[in-house]
């Protein structure tokens, strides 16, 4: 794996390393494929709208757009398989092998490895959601102290993960209907069409509303988050979203004396000072 310092200081500002080059390339392929799939799929779902023929004609209309859709779908499918293999490789190389060397490879320990993976939901996420609700309903000024990956990012990861399984399988069935119906009944095409198009609509809305809001359109990030390109997150965003991880990184880098307080604490302490 490529080695990067956790904190990069540029023009006096601190940037925190978040994503490897491999992950960023995977994400960009995923993003381009998904946008292409949405643009070539939604006009078909909403075929009777006024905008559908215009979007479809950008991809060559009914003759070419379904081919573009299948190419983008195939790329996404290969990416998904690669990603699963990549995950397995990382878990094996950096978790299983060291455990085996220590002769502690038991079923319980393997289960612990999976439970402790950075993107697996845990109790901290439930606590963060509770704290976020308190913050959003004006019960506190302090945002939750997010870990390396917050519940929002885990949601962003697992929603498309589940989506790709559903949309990918149903897409393959419809693409290869002649083969599929040698094994499965014809009604599978009805169900595949419903699952493919409805899950795709959910995925598209989820990504373009929720994901884009969090990473691009939120007031503290607008107009565009750059971590998906550079791999680094600026200090103010680390404090806002990943405070626990921020403190951990600062300590690891020997910068304890430069750790800033989270936003709410500033406000609350100044409020208290004012009262005093």
């Amino acid at each position, binding site marked *: 794996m490529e080695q990067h310092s956790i904190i990069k200081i540029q023009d006096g500002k601190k940037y925190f390393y978040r994503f490897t080059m491999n992950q960023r390339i995977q994400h960009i392929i995923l993003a381009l494929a998904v946008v292409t799939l949405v643009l070539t799929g939604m*006009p*078909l779902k909403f*075929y*009777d709208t006024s905008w*559908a*023929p215009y979007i*479809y004609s950008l991809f060559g*209309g*009914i*003759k070419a757009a*379904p081919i573009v859709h299948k190419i983008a779908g195939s790329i996404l499918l290969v990416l998904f398989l690669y990603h699963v293999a990549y995950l397995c490789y990382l878990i094996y190389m950096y978790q299983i092998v060291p455990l085996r060397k220590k002769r502690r490879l038991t079923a319980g320990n393997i289960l612990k490895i999976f439970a402790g993976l950075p993107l697996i939901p845990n109790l901290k996420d439930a606590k963060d959601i509770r704290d*976020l609700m308190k*913050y*959003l*309903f*004006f*019960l*506190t*000024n302090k945002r939750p102290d997010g870990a390396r990956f917050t519940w929002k990012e885990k949601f962003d990861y697992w*929603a498309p993960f589940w989506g790709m399984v559903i949309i990918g399988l149903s897409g393959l069935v*419809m693409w290869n*209907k*002649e083969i599929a*119906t*040698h094994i*499965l*009944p*014809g*009604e599978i*095409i*009805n*169900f595949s*069409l*419903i*699952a493919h198009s*409805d*899950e795709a*609509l*959910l995925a598209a*809305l*989820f990504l373009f*509303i*929720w994901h884009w*809001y969090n990473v691009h359109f*939120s*007031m*503290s990030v607008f107009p565009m988050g750059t971590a998906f390109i550079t791999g680094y997150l600026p200090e103010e965003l680390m404090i806002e979203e990943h405070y626990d991880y921020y403190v951990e990184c600062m300590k690891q880098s020997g910068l304890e004396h430069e750790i800033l307080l989270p*936003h709410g604490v500033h*406000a*609350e302490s100044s*409020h208290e000072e004012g009262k005093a």
Partner: protein
Amino acid sequence: MKFLTRAGTITCYFLILIIFTIHFSTAYAADIGNCLLCHKYPGISRVDQDGKLRLFYVNEGIFNNSVHVKVKCEGCHTEIKEIPHQPVKKVDCLTQCHIIEPSTEKKFSHKNASDFLSKSVHSKTDNTGKSKKFAEDMPTCKSCHDNPLYRPLSFFKTVRYGVSEASLGRCRVCHSSEEFIYRFYNHITTRLHKSRNPLNIAQVCSRCHDDAQVIARHKLSTRAVYSYGETYHGKAASFLDEQVPDCLDCHVNRGESVHQMHSHEDPQSSTHESNRANICSNMECHPGSSPKLASYKVHAEFNLDQSPVQYYFTLFFIILTGGTLLPLMGIIFLDCLRRLFPDAVIRRRK
């Protein structure tokens, strides 16, 4: 001087108009009965006894590209013997016109199509010859047909729409009349493929098969064209794909006339459950497919009575979508609001 300039301009416009008039009047077939003397005016119309506006305009340019180009007006409007004429009855498509059908050398009529129709599911009478219930709902010729235009095809080097000039070169070796060559070419190539695209066919069928009252009167199980429109075939048809199947491709037996359509309960029907597998697996659609492919429910609707399993399956995704997005959008809204008042907080009184 100004007057002379204006007069010159008017004269020029007039001359251009005359040139165009001469051009068009010589370009198309002669109107022997001189009916276009009146019917060439786009405004020619009247309100009939039922209060409907009836338009009697004949666009010569369009008519000359239609399949009836060779039929004289009085070939169909047989009552008209003089000009000006009295109001006339609607055209009867079974009238024998002056066209000679070359294989029998008899006068041509659409009677064969009518005979097929009378034995089909769309017949006004049942097998015993008795009038069916709601026979008035059954289609007549003009329910589905107007005066169709030629849709010539060129397949000289590539298959495309239109007349192939390269092919016409061959015709001119033996045939001298340009009008005959074009008409013959148009007729043959139009009849070698479908004269309407799938969307057009679906639109024709939808006049009755998507009409809620007709569906209720005849106890039909689906809004046929609406449900077809929800399949890939129907969606592709709406984007003017010519290759996807339309209503007729599935509901008519291969090699038979579209007028010979039968109920899906009739063993003669292509859509009868014993024949359905042959529809999908034919060479032009899904060769090599399993008979199970035909159990795909083409006319399934989001309807608890008609397709309960599909209904609940769709409902699951609707709930999943709403259940996922609405809370998340609520969080976005609250987040935007919270950022407007970053220091505001409701404090409990101690």
